[in-house]
């Protein structure tokens, strides 16, 4: 990592500048550090350095019992905590073969999709802010606030929800909550148009995002991209469709796809996901069945010996949990998270090359990483 030695004799000896972007930088979304090697403003190479937020959640989880881990999962992707909860609980349910009641599955679907919208709100705000459009940020946060209010009513917290239990929900939904969710859907539908009015057709936005960080479908797959970045490259892969969980098999929705695989397509895909999520929420909230919210769960959660990998579609991509139980203890023997942000961030180096410094922040934004999840 040392600076290139001075080359004598070259008349125009332009320096290859090494620029440390982060870990304190307004656009690296937390504590990401990107060591850029620049030729002028052109990025020659980018070394992505992570680990500044590493809290050892996996190790920690191996020393907590299964119920306590729900709370740790909140702390990974803290802008989509409920999705993490759902993914984890479903993994343990799969391991223990617990049947989750339909009502709980419906609520989980609503929660996941609300969380997707909240996460995308934060993404569209910060992504636009990185590219310099600051108004969208506040608009998006205004709507995210509504979602946080809904969550607060559901589980009493606004950021780290701890909203799921193995086997179902901790509590039934508050009376009238589903109607509030439907009211929110109405509000949000118009607001998505508002964001799009500010960005989608904006000439500057198009110039800043079109053709930036192009990644073709096969390469995106090989690089392990998932979620909107993968779909932006035109790969029809959505775990909600392919391996349905919660109540997604009963929902009607489409999987938006991009064509070119550039920053703009990733943007368009997420904007369309807003609408699809609203559609799912409407169906789920209108169709919440009556019944219990917790399945038959033993008092002591002690899964049989075995291991399983279960993935769900988090707002960022494939969020997988790999849990190994030794059948003897109430703690998982091994708890592993496959964090979508981590795997998506890996592509940053490939995406950055040949682009300008200004594009690096756009690309970080288009990957939508949350460092809490990258580092765990």
């Amino acid at each position, binding site marked *: 990592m040392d600076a290139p030695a*001075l080359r*004598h004799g070259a008349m*125009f*000896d*332009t*320096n290859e500048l090494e620029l440390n972007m982060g870990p304190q930088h307004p656009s690296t979304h937390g504590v990401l550090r990107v060591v850029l090697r620049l030729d*002028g403003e052109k990025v020659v190479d980018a070394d992505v350095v992570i680990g500044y937020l590493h809290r050892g959640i996996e190790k920690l989880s191996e020393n907590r019992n299964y119920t306590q881990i729900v709370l740790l999962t909140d702390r990974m992707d803290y802008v989509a905590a409920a999705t993490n909860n759902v993914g984890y609980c479903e993994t343990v349910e799969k391991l223990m073969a617990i049947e989750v009641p339909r009502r709980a599955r419906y609520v989980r679907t609503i929660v996941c999709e609300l969380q997707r919208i909240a996460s995308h709100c934060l993404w569209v705000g910060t992504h636009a802010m990185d590219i310099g459009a600051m108004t969208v940020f506040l608009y998006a946060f205004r709507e995210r606030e509504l979602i946080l209010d809904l969550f607060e009513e559901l589980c009493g917290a606004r950021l780290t929800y701890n909203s799921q239990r193995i086997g179902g929900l901790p509590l039934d939904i508050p009376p009238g909550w589903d109607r509030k969710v439907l009211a929110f859907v109405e509000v949000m539908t118009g607001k998505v148009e508002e964001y799009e009015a500010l960005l989608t057709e904006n000439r500057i936005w198009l110039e800043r995002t079109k053709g930036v960080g192009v990644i073709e479908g096969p390469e995106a797959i090989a690089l392990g991209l998932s979620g909107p970045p993968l779909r932006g490259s035109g790969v029809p892969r959505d775990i909600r469709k392919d391996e349905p969980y919660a109540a997604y098999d009963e929902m009607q929705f489409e999987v938006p796809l991009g064509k070119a695989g550039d920053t703009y397509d990733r943007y368009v895909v997420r904007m369309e996901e807003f609408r699809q999520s609203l559609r799912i929420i409407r169906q789920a909230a209108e169709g919440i069945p009556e019944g219990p919210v917790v399945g038959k769960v033993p008092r002591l959660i002690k899964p049989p010996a075995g291991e399983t990998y279960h993935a769900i579609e988090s707002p960022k991509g494939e969020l997988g949990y790999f849990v190994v139980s030794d059948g003897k203890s109430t703690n998982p023997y091994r708890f592993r998270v496959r964090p979508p942000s981590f795997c998506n961030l890996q592509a940053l180096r490939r995406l950055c090359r040949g682009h300008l410094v200004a594009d690096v922040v756009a690309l970080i934004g288009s990957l939508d990483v949350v460092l809490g999840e990258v580092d765990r």
Partner: protein
Amino acid sequence: MGEAIAFYTLAAFILGFAVLVIATKDTVHSVLFLVLDFLFVAALYVLLEAPFLAVIQVLVYAGGIVVLYLFVVMLVNLKRPPEAHQDPRRRTWLGFGLSAAILAELAAIALYSSAGAAPAGPAAALPVAGNTEQVGWLLYTRYLIPFEIASMLLLVAMIGAIVLAKREL
């Protein structure tokens, strides 16, 4: 009287800064002194009641060209290690010889101009009044050909610079 004081003060500053331009070690400081030098030259023009020239001096030289100098200085790595100053190819005597020649030339010019007749009066017969108009008139009538040649030269230099700088065309 006041004019003379002003002139000599300005001249002293101009010369002082000119010396500093070549005397400072830091390239950026050197360029900065060059800017100051240009600004004082502009003040000299003001003293000569040629505000147009003064403004153009600031705009083109201080504002434009030296910015490009700075650009180059900051982009190109000039911070060579000290031993680079001991350049074996340095021809000290050649430098002295050239300096002496230029000094002699300057002295000759000074002698000639002081000894010769007073220069012809300013172009009094210009059909336009006003500083700007006079400059324009002279440029496009009497000095048209030098002006055009100068602009051609600049164009050639520009194209040459682009060709040199651009790695792939």
